[in-house]
């Protein structure tokens, strides 16, 4: 029996405490619900705000990145164009210089050939003149040595006959 009384007392004690706990929890809930709720709300707003700010930052960063990428692409394209143009200009210049050099070489070749031909002709003429002069000198020498008065008189007579014919035909 005593045991039954003790159990009852314990149950009573427990129920009293449970009630106290319940009242305590109710009071706690009543007083803490709003500040905790406010705290969490403000916390979530702050986090949301931070997330939004981070999104904005990411978006602007992305935007700047995109813009820069476009610029980089444009610059890259311009550099490529410039390189291509520069290469073309260089190629054209080189080609022009080579063409000029070739035409100069041809002209020099032609001039040199002409000079060589002229010089050859000149030397040939000089040699011919020299030979002719020597031949004439030889003939003069021979004629002086072999010439006598009788032959000279004969030459004079023949020439004066030619003059006579010329004068007669002229008159």
């Amino acid at each position: 029996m005593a045991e039954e009384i003790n159990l009852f007392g314990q149950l009573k004690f427990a129920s009293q405490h449970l009630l106290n706990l319940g009242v305590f929890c109710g009071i706690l809930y009543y007083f803490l619900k709003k500040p905790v709720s406010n705290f969490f709300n403000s916390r979530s707003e702050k986090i949301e705000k931070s997330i939004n700010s981070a999104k904005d930052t990411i978006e602007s960063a992305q935007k700047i990145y995109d813009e820069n990428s476009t610029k980089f692409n444009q610059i890259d394209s311009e550099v490529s164009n410039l390189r291509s143009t520069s290469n073309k200009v260089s190629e054209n210049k080189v080609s022009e210089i080579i063409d000029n050099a070739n035409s100069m070489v041809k002209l020099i070749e032609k001039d040199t050939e002409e000079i060589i031909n002229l010089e050859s002709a000149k030397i040939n003429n000089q040699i011919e003149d020299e030979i002719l002069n020597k031949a004439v000198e030889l003939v003069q020498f021979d004629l002086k040595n072999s010439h006598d008065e009788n032959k000279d008189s004969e030459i004079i007579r023949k020439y004066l006959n030619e003059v006579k014919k010329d004068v007669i035909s002229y008159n």
Partner: protein
Amino acid sequence: MSSATINDFLQAITSSDSSRDDLNEIYNSLVKFSEVTSANKEVRVFLTNDIHDSESKLTIIRDIIGESRPSINFFKTIIDFNILSDLISSYEFFLKKLRIILERVKIDVYVASLNDEKKKIINDELVNIWGQNLEINYNLDVSIIGGIILQVEDKLYDGSIRGKLEKFNNI
């Protein structure tokens, strides 16, 4: 004074009553006069200088040409007309005109050597061609080697061996 004046003067004296003998005398005097004035610069300067009077000039001329009346008269007229300088500078023109009037031909003969036989041959041939009225001047020129060169008034006949060699050389 120009040679036209000399020409006019020449026409005047040749169309006057001057006989052929007088003209011949004038011609011969002029030849002597031209020889002396060509060779002697002092005489030439004296005669062309206006400082000296006519009488002094005529005395000098008389010393040169001798006492030929028609010639002295001719020179006197030349001095009176003040064309003595023109006569000295263009006497060859004057002599040539006189030769035409006198039907005389002046021939300068150039030969390498000359002897009597050759001279006779040349004289005979020249008379045969141009007649008796000739004025022949012989000149020795060994450079012509042989043959003959004739300067007949303005015409040159080259029958020399040097001339033939030059022709050959020019070919």
